[in-house]
């Protein structure tokens, strides 16, 4: 009996107990931080919209909320922001990357062709390679330019339709370019219905 208990019941019981304790602890932590995590996610999207619109803000949850609520209006399928008296249109775009989907916000001026900015909402490319599309210099180079873009070697773009590609990540750069190229036509379709 005691042998049976020691060999079979006790290990099972022990494992069960450990599992329960671990799950209760992690579930507790998860529930306690749930609202915070949700708020963070919202804040991320809002910050991407502000970046795409070219608005400046204080980089905290509160700072982002303040500027967002003051200048951004949510429309059906897109956002508008008033910057220096002019309206800018921000279009959410989703498309394939090398590994997973890339989700961006593309900001356009009133002409719906010139970019006011581009910001990444989410991406899952390789760190150090495709992941470098998140680096500020890469997204910043779209501001003031007009598509369709041509990718050139890193550090050599000079004309208004040229953007630097990322060395070692030509595929991801290409996917990103394709995504931004869709911005103008997508904007016309959603906003003007053509």
């Amino acid at each position: 009996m005691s042998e049976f208990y020691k060999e079979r019941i006790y290990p099972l019981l022990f494992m069960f107990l450990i599992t329960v304790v671990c799950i209760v602890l992690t579930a507790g932590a998860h529930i306690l931080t749930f609202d915070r995590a949700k708020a963070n996610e919202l804040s991320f999207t809002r910050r991407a919209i502000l970046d795409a619109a070219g608005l400046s803000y204080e980089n905290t949850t509160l700072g982002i909320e303040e500027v967002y609520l003051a200048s951004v209006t949510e429309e059906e399928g897109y956002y508008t922001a008033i910057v220096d008296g002019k309206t800018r249109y921000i279009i959410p775009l989703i498309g394939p990357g090398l590994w997973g989907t890339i989700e961006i916000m593309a900001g356009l001026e009133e002409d719906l062709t010139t970019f006011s900015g581009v910001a990444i909402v989410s991406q899952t490319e390789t760190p150090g390679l495709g992941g470098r599309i998140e680096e500020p210099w890469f997204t910043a180079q779209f501001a003031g330019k007009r598509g369709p873009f041509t990718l050139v070697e890193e550090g050599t773009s000079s004309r208004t339709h040229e953007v630097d590609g990322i060395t070692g990540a030509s595929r991801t750069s290409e996917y990103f370019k394709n995504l931004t190229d869709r911005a103008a036509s997508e904007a016309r379709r959603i906003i003007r219905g053509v």
Partner: protein
Amino acid sequence: MAKSGLLKTFTEPLGKNNPVFVQILGICSTLAVTNKLQNTMVMVLGVTFATALSSWTVSLLRKRIPSRIRMMVETMIIAAYVILVDIILKAYYPEMWKQLGPYVGLIITNCIVMGRVEAFALTNKPLPSLVDGLASGLGYAYVLLIIAAVRELMGSGSLWGYRILGPWWTNWAIMVMPPGGFFILAIAIWVIRETVGKEVSHA
């Protein structure tokens, strides 16, 4: 006596029993994020936290864990701590959490955590186990931080996100790319073994 024993437990993993350059353990999960110093700092803190607390917990339970299911129990405990790290990062450092992606979860399979639990915590008292886990984590941390500092400085001309080198510096793209991690780690192992770790390199 007890005090010097603890001290020795603490200093050994930092030097002659260093997990990275002596035992070459646990580079999988962190090497991928060493192209930025900030990301590396968060990852090594996560690894240190998980190693120290898993060692402590396993040591507390060491007389009660049935040996047949030892590995399962250890994995469960380690996984619970790693999930905690993940939840905390997600709630309080969301930006970091996004950048680290799946690498936080991979701390579970980091050989250092399981290695210290198996090699030390199973046969030692809780306090020394905690110290051993902490020191192994720190020994691991400083080597990876050095690698990250070199990679970020040469690859992006910056440290901790701040531009250090002037416009005259041309970034070595290879440093932020995967091959750079291999080269710098190899060179770090070479240099350390050639200098401080000479007497242990043949262990």
